């Protein structure tokens, strides 16, 4: 087991290095550099000052040298400095990680607690009105734009009822609306998957055995059927984390909530490339790391998965 975990973690290293190179090269394509961005912000610089600044940021060296320098910095935990505030990118990004992780986890909790029971309900009553209604709701949930759904929640629960704040400044009350907004679309995906997966596993022989031994319908579904049905569901949850991290960017802007999303969007609007580069790299790394954890969970849930086949 330990060997599997270590092996799986080693496999992520080339992906992470590749991601860093990829994002670095992408940033090279941005028209204009840090200096022109600062000047667009209203600063008046003489040609000599511009030269000096390019010198200070190391912008006039060959791209490959800059890349090597960037990667060497990454190893030492140096993500560069913001061209706007001159603060270290790492500390700017690190300060925002907890807020985004809390939001994503809360969204996942909502997704699981809404999606799994809905899927089980639809599977147990399959081809009835309840099933059609549950799955219809799920397709609708997939079709509603999250940022709009969140805005409607604000309208209802913040503007009209006043139960929760419209802007998420922190604390539990401020987390409820963003988490529901984030979780509901993923709940729809989960519900559909749980339904099809549970229907499949309820047709297996061992389910008939369990029923023959006198287990109640409820026990057969939740204990015997669901356990097997959860294997593809866990894989899907891993894939969905990427969606959640991506969607969190938009939701954070909607609720004016602190986090990596705000950092990403603001750094685009302010053309602060080092911060954009750093925050996107961190988001991608979070995604990769969470997927490793999911792979390990997968192994725990389904002992049939071969250890070597990562």
């Amino acid at each position, binding site marked *: 087991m330990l060997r599997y975990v270590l092996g799986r973690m080693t496999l992520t290293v080339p*992906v992470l290095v590749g991601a860093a190179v990829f994002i670095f090269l992408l940033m090279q394509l941005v028209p204009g550099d840090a200096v022109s961005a600062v000047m667009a912000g209203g600063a008046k610089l003489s040609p000599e000052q511009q030269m000096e600044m390019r010198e200070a940021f190391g912008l006039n060296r060959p791209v490959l040298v800059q890349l090597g320098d960037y990667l060497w910095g990454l190893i030492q935990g140096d993500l560069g400095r913001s061209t706007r505030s001159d603060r270290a990118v790492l500390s700017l990004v690190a300060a925002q990680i907890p807020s985004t992780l809390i939001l994503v986890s809360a969204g996942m909790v909502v997704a699981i607690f809404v999606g799994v029971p809905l899927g089980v309900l639809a599977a147990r009553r399959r081809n009835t009105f309840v099933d059609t209604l549950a799955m219809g709701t799920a397709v609708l949930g997939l079709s509603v*734009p999250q940022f*709009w759904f969140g805005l409607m929640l604000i309208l209802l629960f913040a503007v009209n009822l006043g139960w929760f704040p419209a802007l998420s400044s922190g604390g539990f009350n401020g987390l409820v609306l963003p988490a529901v907004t984030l979780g509901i679309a993923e709940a729809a*995906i989960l519900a559909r998957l749980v339904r099809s997966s549970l229907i499949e596993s309820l047709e297996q022989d061992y389910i008939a055995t369990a029923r023959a031994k006198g287990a109640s319908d409820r026990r057969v579904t939740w204990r015997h059927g669901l356990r097997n049905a959860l294997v*593809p569901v866990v894989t899907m949850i891993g894939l969905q984390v990427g969606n959640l991290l*991506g969607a969190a960017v*938009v939701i954070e802007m909607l609720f004016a909530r602190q986090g990596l999303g705000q950092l990403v969007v603001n750094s*685009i609007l302010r053309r602060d490339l080092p911060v954009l580069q750093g925050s996107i790299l961190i988001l991608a790394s979070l995604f990769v790391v969470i997927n490793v954890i999911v792979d390990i969970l997968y192994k725990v849930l389904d002992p049939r998965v071969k250890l070597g086949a990562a």
Partner: protein
Amino acid sequence: MSSSARPDIALQDTGAGPASLEQSSVGIWRRLVSHRSVVVGGSLFSIILAAALFAGWFAPYGPVDTQPDVALQPPNWTHLMGTDQFGRDVLSRVIHGARPSLVMGVAPMLISSVVGTTLGMLFGYYGRWADLLLTRFVDIALAFPPILLALTVVAVLGPGLWSIALALGLSGIPFYIRMARGQVLQAKEAPFVQTAIAIGAGDLRIMFRHIIQRVMPPILVMMTIHVAGAILAGAALSFLGLGIPPPSPEWGTMIQDGRQFIALSWWMAFFPGVALALTVFATNLLGDGLRDVLSPRSKGERIR
């Protein structure tokens, strides 16, 4: 081995592939038009497509005509969906907003499916080191949540409708590569392909006559679902202020506008969102129906 010994049987076998597919393609069509999701989704989508193509005929007012004296009016008989802060008719703007939304849905799908499927098929078929390299690249690209990748590309290209379309198109490519490549690897082992190789069919013929039949059904399903995802992602990027600059009507931007006035006039954000949801709902229904008919066993993956 028996195929080389008795060529008549081999020919029959290869003949059976395309012939049965032709037969079943009639069956597929019949099953499609009798599938409930396809019918409902298709009709809904046609209406939206009509709105996108002939917005000027349907819309009661111009999309950017301002009438300051009727600003922020709730829905009424002259303005069915109310008016915005400049007195523009929300209904007219919603109708005109269909076009950019469909562009943001369809253009990325075309870019990613053509590029991704071609690359996936070629590299999956010829294999070797290039395939290995491409697979590594796909792994790296998939380490980024798609919308983040698109966000970064928009940062490179600058805001606008076409840069969003291009960004979403590029960020979707790895999904098609992976799907097409996987299908090719499976199809290469299938008896009808092995037979085609045995009777000496050329690589191109094998790929574009035989293997493509295995590749296309899941790709088609992916394309429909991709349109739905791209419409949502495009609207989200516009909502973040990276889309078409005002005053042009676009649903994501209209929702952002409505956000400022949410306590005062809910209709500004409500109706564009409904239009967006209906469009995506129609596309999702089409995709579900297509999946039921074409590849009932695939789980389906969403690109967002």
